[in-house]
């Protein structure tokens, strides 16, 4: 069996980089350890190059159809790798100054991203599971990275327990699905579900259990409880990773399993996910209103965003090609937009408060004078998260409403109206931060901020990206139009 190396080239590149990082960390001493960061970046860039090459080469099928590199997968891979690059950049000074275990951190980070790269290509329950765990396990450790910090260890514990619980639930579901269909291949499952098996209650329940595992990753209600505590307790770059990359990976997996394997029973899970979407965005926004800690606010905001992204799932119908494709595209576009703006927001948070404990919104008072760049950037990111015009956030919401409008249903309209109302509610708390930044005077002792160069670069790039995509969403929207699932084999 010949292995299609090109198909897995990005993963291989990252794996090699991870090993190199580990080795370098062992070899280097003291401040020299900081060199692992550029090393990781180089590896990432190499992986990106491979991914770009793959974009032209897609679709490719490897490992007898268990692993498919289609345009959908490549799009996600590029998204992950881009996010990785940004997170590496914002991590540099954070970890260098914090005296953390740099080598381990970068190794774990790269490993987690390997798992993510696997996710959208997986066409087998087993591969999906492996990918998911490869994302999760390093993340458990990274969250607890600040070993002496009570918050950090508590965050790790909560994350871990909820993580393994949902993994176990998902596995139980997978085992049942296997039992009913006799295969772990996604296409095979789809065929079985399209037949008689599609109406067995136990099987349908199992399908739901499988979906639950991803619900944890994307922090949908009621699997979201870990998110605020974990984000607040972990090192900020890790929180950014969890909020963006890990969540995107969850969506990648959920999209794959929902629209490839479980598509024939979409009429069953779609309403459930739609209801979850409504619950998730509403709860996320409402609770966010009460937050005084910026990171927790961002956490709840990201829960709400997950709710928006679940809406297209609620639209899915078995066999409705056009609707389902529009739904997938909407989610993908939203994720890209979400990555740009949310990484940006976390980056600014890193620039403003690097330490642990409560990171009050009050700390942002007078940011406009303390660091105009960060203040402006934060404003742009928050407005974008809210969906203001000339930012990519507007188009993200637009994409979702557009998906709803492809074939108007009552339920779709209900979800859309919740989206609309929630967008307005969300502005309440985004504007609160913006107000703090611009309208309030800085505390007397607050110094001017000197963000690290790499951080500034990331912030500027993301800010420009947010606005550029806000003006010309076609830059991303047009290519993603062609993203489709390729069938294995």
């Amino acid at each position, binding site marked *: 069996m010949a292995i299609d190396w090109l198909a897995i080239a990005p993963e291989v590149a990252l794996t090699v980089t991870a090993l190199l990082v580990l080795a370098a960390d062992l070899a280097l001493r003291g401040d020299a350890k900081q060199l692992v960061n550029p090393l990781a970046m180089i590896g990432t860039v190499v992986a990106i190059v491979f991914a770009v090459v793959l974009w032209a080469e897609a679709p490719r099928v490897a490992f007898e159809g268990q692993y498919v590199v289609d345009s959908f997968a490549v799009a996600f891979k590029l998204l992950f790798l881009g996010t990785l690059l940004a997170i590496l950049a914002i991590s540099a000074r954070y970890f260098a100054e914090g005296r953390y275990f740099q080598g381990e951190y970068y190794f774990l980070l790269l490993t987690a991203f390997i798992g993510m790269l696997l996710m959208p290509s997986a066409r087998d329950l087993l591969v999906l599971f492996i990918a998911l765990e490869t994302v999760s396990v390093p993340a458990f450790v990274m969250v607890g990275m600040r070993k002496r910090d009570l918050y950090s260890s508590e965050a790790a514990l909560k994350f871990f327990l909820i993580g393994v*619980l949902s993994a176990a639930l998902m596995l139980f579901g997978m085992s049942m699905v296997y039992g009913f269909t006799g295969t772990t291949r996604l296409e095979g499952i789809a065929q079985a579900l399209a037949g008689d098996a599609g109406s067995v209650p136990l099987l349908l*329940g199992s*399908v739901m259990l499988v979906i639950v595992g991803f619900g*944890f990753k994307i922090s949908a209600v009621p699997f979201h409880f870990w998110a605020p*505590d974990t984000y607040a307790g972990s090192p900020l770059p890790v929180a950014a990773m969890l909020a963006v990359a890990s969540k995107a990976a969850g969506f990648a997996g959920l999209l794959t399993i929902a629209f490839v394997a479980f598509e024939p029973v979409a009429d*069953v899970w779609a309403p459930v996910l739609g209801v979850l979407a409504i619950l998730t965005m509403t709860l996320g926004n409402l609770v966010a209103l*009460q937050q005084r800690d910026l990171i927790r606010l961002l956490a709840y905001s990201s829960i709400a965003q997950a709710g928006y992204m679940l809406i297209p799932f609620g639209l899915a119908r078995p066999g409705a090609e056009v609707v389902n494709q529009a739904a997938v595209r909407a989610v993908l576009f939203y994720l890209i937009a979400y990555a740009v703006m949310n990484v940006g927001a976390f980056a600014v948070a890193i620039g403003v408060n690097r330490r642990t404990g409560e990171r009050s919104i009050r700390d942002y008072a007078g940011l406009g004078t303390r660091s105009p760049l960060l203040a402006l950037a934060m404003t742009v990111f928050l407005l974008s998260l809210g969906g203001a015009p000339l930012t990519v956030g507007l188009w993200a919401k637009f994409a979702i409403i557009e998906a709803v409008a492809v074939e108007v249903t009552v339920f779709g309209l209900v979800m859309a109206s919740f989206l609309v109302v929630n967008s307005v509610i969300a502005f309440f708390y985004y504007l609160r931060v913006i107000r703090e930044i611009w309208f309030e005077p800085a505390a007397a002792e607050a110094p001017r901020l000197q963000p690290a160069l790499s951080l500034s670069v990331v912030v500027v790039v993301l800010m420009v990206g947010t606005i550029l995509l806000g003006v010309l969403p076609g830059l991303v929207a047009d290519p993603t139009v062609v993203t489709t699932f390729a069938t294995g084999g």
Partner: protein
Amino acid sequence: MGTVLEYAWLVPVLPLVSAALIAVFGKRLPWHGSEIGIAAVGLAMLLSIAIAWQTFVTSPVEPLELAYDWAPLGGGTVLELGMLVDGLTAMMFLLVTVVSLMVHIYSREYMHGEVRFTYFYAMLSFFTFSMLLLVIANNLVQAILGWELVGLSSYLLIGFYWEDKSNQDAGNKAFLTTKFGDVGLIVGAIVLAAGMLELGSTTPFNLLELNQAAADGQLGQGTIVLGILLIFLGCMSKSGQFPLHVWLPDAMAGPTPVSALIHAATMVTAGVFLLARLFPVLAQSQTAMAVVAIVGVITLFFGGLLALVQDDIKKVLAYSTVSQLGYMIAALGVGGYTASIFHLFTHGFFKALLFLGSGSLIHAVHSNNMSDMGGLRKAMPHTFWTFVIGSLALAGFPLTAGFFSKDEILIAGDIWAGAGFATGNLVYWVGLAAAFVTSFYMARAVFLIFFGETRSHHAPHESGRWMLAPLMVLAVLSIVSGYIFSPFWTAEQNFETWTATPIIDEEATFPFADHGAEAAGSAVQGEGVLAAAPTLAAEGGELTILHGAPTWHPDLLLIVLAVFGLAVVLAWRSYGHGLPERDPTLHMGGLSTALVNKYWLDDIGYRYIVVPVRDRWSAWATWTSNVLIDGAVGGVGRATKALAVATYDVDQRVIDGGVNGVAFSAAWWSERLRRLQSGDVQRYAGALVAGVVVLVLAVALAR
């Protein structure tokens, strides 16, 4: 080659230019701008005289209409800016420019030394422009434009002494009361124009078209009644008709020349003018005419009564103005088109004269009150005789201008009664009664002011030339202006032919009066006999004379003279020697045996007529005017205020509160939901598992 009529547009434009020039350069000029005003209005007057002459000698003149498209209004309709020159326009031009010029000249002296002298002149000129714009308008919108500008200038001039609160209030009251009427005017104009639009007119506001369409019976009765009555509401407020006259006495807060120009001669006649302009429309509806007549009658009578109890000379004149305007309106209501505008014309001169005369008095004694005057005859001889002429004219003393015009109205009422309409009788008899009242209070005023001992705290002195000259000019006009419609003129050229237009003359004018017209010997319908004089002649035996020469009516002359005499004598009895309360014995001493009966009559008259009328009825009228109606206006004001406060409250609490309430309920939920995040990981896990169970069950049971 056009006639002088084509330059009629210059008449309003000159004062406008003057107003602008005064405003810009006035302060730097030696006479502080007054010279510009006088020159411009003087020129306008000369032009008006030329126009008047032209229209008069060729009367009845075909209306000259020149218009250009001002703006498209959408839907193919066009708004015009234009001029309509006919006898009515020419007549109004003459009146307005003459009185305005007199006031301009007079104010040179009267307003001398005022801080805002220049501003005053600018405003005078601006007012003149506004009034002329209204007069020249060939369409309703332009008329409304002039109408409202007139209101604005009036507001600004009433509140000329704006340091005092009462003056500010007077200005506001005047503006708002008339603005209320304007609602009627505007909506009425719109209703009529909508009717025109339905007829396919592209210039729906055009006056001539409107009149023509109405006369041809093309407009629906509903449109006509609604439209004209709404417009009449505007006329009521502007022309001080009961009960909307309340602002007029208060408006005397303005400088006296202003009162002369605006609140006597011109602006208050705008309503009469507009209604006369729309007479062909009004004449289509019996209902509308009846309403107009009744309102006019009420006004002329009760307005007159009010004047009896005034001490302030300007208020006496103001109430008399109200009363006279009532005559004009009532005349329109009984088909007396010519009578109405004839009275408008003469009244303008003599009422301006009276006001300017009172200004001269006030200038001399520094008080408006007649109780502060007395015996001024000697100190101010010129003022005296001019004032007396004015008073005689107002009282309708034979052979003065007021005699001719007021009698026309009475005769018009008589004819209308002859045609079978009860309102005609009403106008005739109440008009006659009010003539008595008029004579009485004017006599009272004259006696109190010029006779008896002086009660002034200042040494009275005669006014200077600048003030006296206008008085004399107006005094002359107060006599001669009436002769334009007297038997000295021919059937072909007199006031009636001058102001008549083909639409009024030749078209069906009172379609509802078919049977009645026959009864009146076709005196009303279709024969163009709107003026009373020729009709009465017809009754006198010379049948069906159209546009007959005005003739003498000795019977009426006698009646009027009697009424006048009675009034003056009664007045003399009371006031001839100063304030009666102060010296009743002197009053008694003048009696002779031959006058006992008179004394007896006097006693009866005093007890049963004078006392009730002067002390009770008028007091009651004053009370209703001041307390009920004014109170209602004030009450409306207060109620509006209260409503405003309440509305604002509702706004802030309920509507805004609702908006905020949504936000608060979001916060409320937010607070509850936040508690779910207990911090205990096992509760999280429990919730997770519970959620999973629910979801799994939901899905499993879905099929």
